[in-house]
């Protein structure tokens, strides 16, 4: 099969569920009263379980109160309200008033009440709210906005503002089994697991999912993004729920997880960025955050145990998604954060301020004015155990047998919960997804040239450690073009072998004449940074103005074992 056939000629597809009021995400909002009740109840039960049937509940409350106090005083954000401070002060008073108790054997009623109030507060902050009207508006406005921005920006000439030369579909390349994903979203709950490189990711993914005719996905967005009024309006009304990364208490995390688990059980297609945050190093994610993935395993077990034929989601599917950019606008700040953290420098807390309207607009403008393509490479849908699924959603093993997923949860002859076992399944799922990321990654010309250039410099100055290499004087960064081209050729061929073995994907510009590939890469690699990651110098040899950026773009191809081929 030629890889070209994977590329969809036309991304636009009719909606899988034409009636927006039938979407699971809408139903979650519609049924929010019963959903909230169930959610709070589930969270409370989890916390009681975690605190040894409430025996350690008081300590848990005191810990939570303490963590919240620290957060409010040491790491305040614009989103924090006065009401929040008042609330935690009250909790503090109540917890302290209830402190001097003789050893407790049952759940203390006052503590139980405090717990209920805390979960309630968290739940109101987290919950998403999907408004079909807002979705309709966004889905009409965004394409027009994108389209105009694209044509205007790339024309670099306001006079051509109504030109129609460039379309989104030219710029956004969607790869993968779209029809299968569409079909399975009617057979169960789909969990989309994208890599995360840029703040642009969620906007792009949302746009593409809409184009694919899929119902809106639930996703957790950082609370800090809600400081921007426009983003806040759209995300809030499109069903994004809020995640506050500062909150580390068990009660908060369990509230969040219960939300995700229950939304999945009600058929809410969800999107998790399993890497947690944007990749700082530019590498494909290697270690995933397992918290939300774990809720998927839980949800699958619960769905199979209750075995309700009426339930919307007895089966969950995961779809890996890899985004590929020639140019990541935030690369300079991401890579410097990465180097700071690995350099063991004193850790400092980022103020986490999201740009205001003007800078978001600049951000989009820069993105659209770059002519380079963006790749969204969807993987095949799998069940949570990494088995392939047929068009009916049945899991299929390596011997083409239909698999009964209940079997994964059977211990000593019957289905039963086992926290340790399920945690192990979650870890295995995480490993599986990182493996899939490598396979679905569409290798671009800019990846190849950055990788080769950095590796050649590293080999030449093998006595230097990474930090020494990054501080290499500019005159030492030169690589003769001919040798560079030869290495690019070798690495390109290695990549094509990987592609042949389904261990990676290749952009169509990767084939053919190597000089054309290099030219394409140089044109696109980090093109709009002030300092070039990689470029031709006056003599026509390869050099770099910014080693950190070169390192960042190079990192995308680590993990394939290509280093030994340089």
């Amino acid at each position: 099969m030629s890889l070209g056939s994977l590329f969809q000629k036309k991304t636009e597809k009719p909606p899988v569920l034409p009636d927006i009021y039938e979407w699971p995400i809408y139903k979650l909002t519609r049924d929010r009263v019963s959903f909230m009740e169930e959610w709070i109840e589930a969270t409370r039960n989890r916390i009681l379980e975690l605190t040894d049937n409430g025996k350690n509940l008081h300590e848990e409350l005191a810990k939570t109160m303490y963590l919240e106090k620290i957060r409010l005083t040491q790491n305040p954000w614009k989103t924090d309200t006065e009401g929040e401070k008042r609330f935690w002060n009250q909790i503090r008073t109540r917890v302290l008033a209830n402190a001097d108790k003789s050893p407790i054997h049952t759940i203390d009623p006052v503590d139980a009440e405090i717990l209920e109030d805390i979960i309630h507060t968290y739940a109101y902050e987290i919950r998403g709210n999907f408004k079909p009207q807002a979705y309709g508006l966004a889905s009409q406005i965004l394409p027009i906005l994108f389209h105009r921005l694209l044509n205007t920006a790339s024309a670099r000439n306001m006079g051509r503002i109504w030109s129609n030369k460039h379309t989104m579909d030219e710029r956004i390349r969607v790869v993968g089994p779209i029809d299968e994903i569409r079909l399975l979203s009617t057979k169960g709950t789909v969990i989309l697991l994208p890599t995360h490189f840029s703040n642009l990711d969620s906007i792009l993914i949302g746009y593409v999912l809409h184009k694919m005719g899929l119902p809106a996905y639930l996703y957790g967005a950082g609370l800090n993004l809600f400081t921007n009024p426009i983003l806040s309006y759209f995300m809030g009304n499109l069903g994004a729920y809020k995640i506050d990364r500062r909150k580390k208490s068990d009660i908060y995390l369990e509230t969040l997880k219960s939300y995700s688990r229950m939304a999945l059980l009600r058929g809410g297609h969800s999107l998790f960025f399993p890497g947690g945050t944007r990749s700082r190093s530019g590498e494909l994610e290697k270690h995933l955050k397992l918290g939300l993935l774990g809720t998927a395993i839980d949800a699958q077990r619960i769905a199979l145990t209750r075995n309700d034929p009426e339930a919307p989601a007895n089966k969950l599917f995961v779809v890996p998604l890899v985004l590929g950019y020639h140019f990541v606008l935030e690369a300079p700040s991401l890579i410097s954060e990465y180097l700071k953290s690995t350099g063991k420098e004193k850790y400092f807390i980022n103020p986490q301020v999201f740009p205001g309207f003007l800078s978001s607009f600049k951000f989009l403008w820069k993105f659209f004015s770059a002519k380079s393509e963006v790749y969204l490479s969807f993987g095949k849908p799998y069940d949570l155990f990494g088995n392939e699924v047929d068009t009916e959603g049945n899991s299929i093993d390596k011997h083409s047998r239909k698999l009964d997923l209940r079997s994964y949860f059977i211990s000593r002859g019957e289905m039963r919960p086992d926290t340790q076992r399920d945690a192990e399944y979650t870890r295995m799922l995480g490993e599986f997804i990182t493996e899939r990321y490598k396979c679905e990654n569409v290798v671009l010309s800019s990846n190849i040239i950055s990788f080769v250039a950095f590796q050649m410099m590293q080999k030449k100055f093998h006595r230097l450690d990474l930090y020494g290499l990054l501080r290499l004087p500019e005159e030492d960064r030169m690589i003769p073009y001919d040798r560079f081209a030869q290495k690019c050729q070798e690495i390109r061929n290695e990549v094509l072998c990987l592609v042949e073995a389904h261990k990676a994907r290749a952009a169509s510009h990767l084939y053919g004449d190597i000089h054309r590939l290099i030219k394409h890469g140089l044109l696109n690699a980090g093109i709009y940074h002030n300092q070039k990651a990689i470029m031709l110098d006056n003599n026509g040899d390869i050099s770099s103005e910014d080693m950190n950026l070169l390192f960042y773009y190079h990192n995308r191809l680590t993990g394939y074992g290509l280093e030994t081929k340089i």
Partner: protein
Amino acid sequence: MDSKPRYENQPVGVLGAGNFGTAISNLIAENRPVLLYSRNPDAVEKMIAGRIARGQQLHPDVTPTNDLAKVCTESTLLFPVIASNGFADLMNKMAPHLHPHHIIIHGTKGFDVSLAGLEDIFDTDEIQLKSIRTMTEVIREATVVVRIGVISGPNLAAEIAQGKPAAAVIASHFDEVVREAAEVLRSPRFRVYSSNDVMGVELAGVLKNIFALASGMLTGLEMGENARALLITRGLHEMVLLGRALGSDANSFFGLAGIGDLTATCSSEKSRNYRTGLRLSQGDSLKVVLADMDETVEGILTTRIAYALSKREKLDTPIIDSLYQVLYHNKPISQALDSLMIHRRERDIDF
């Protein structure tokens, strides 16, 4: 009445009626009925008729069988304990009968090289390291089973058969696997330790065979116990280096599966690897010795793989290197020993 037998009465499957397979079948039979599988129908007939396997009297609750499907269907808990060269084949045959609720705990101390591009172990082609797999990897790739464990440790089958006390370590990422195994193996003469370092325990068990071979040679050359202590200590060092290069934790090498098993096999004529080394040092050719052995001598091929791995990872493993020269390039043992003793100066402990 429930037609399904209660889980507690379910038979445990032991696959492979070799020395170790028979010994642990008898051990498990003290707690649970056992289905003991052998691929050889004649051997099964004989076991049924005589109630004896490998010289060991079979416990009344051990049922020999040649029916693989039956074992997989009736048992949830399976112990494949066969030689590494038949392991992948067995897993492929079992695969159609297995489900994710099965638990597989293997006791095979070798690498899978069925795809390493060799005709036989004397094939002079270079070993393709890419295609070398641990038994756990074989199970994962061939079957849908995920609850996998490994049993390892100083378990000389003959001693277990005689009812002498012993212990083993069971390693798995799943607590449940360790729990289930410990339950069926519990006995006043057998202790079970747990670990979650699957790869470390697996590698330790595989790599120690190399040094068991070398230890047999020392005995044959009457080198004495100082030399054996030296071999064991430095051998452990080389095992740790290789284990770490392959991505496992060093800790397991200092447990039962590492130093425990190494000490036992380096000191006992009951070890096949040791006996092989002994006979080689007495002048028999490798082919003749192997032809006389009733079971696979894992250390021979493992030495070759370890040598290739060591070269790839640029490790300093003088014992493995010398043994490789002896086994595959006819270097006289005494000469190999000499070169070992005049090896350049080294630190005692450097990891």
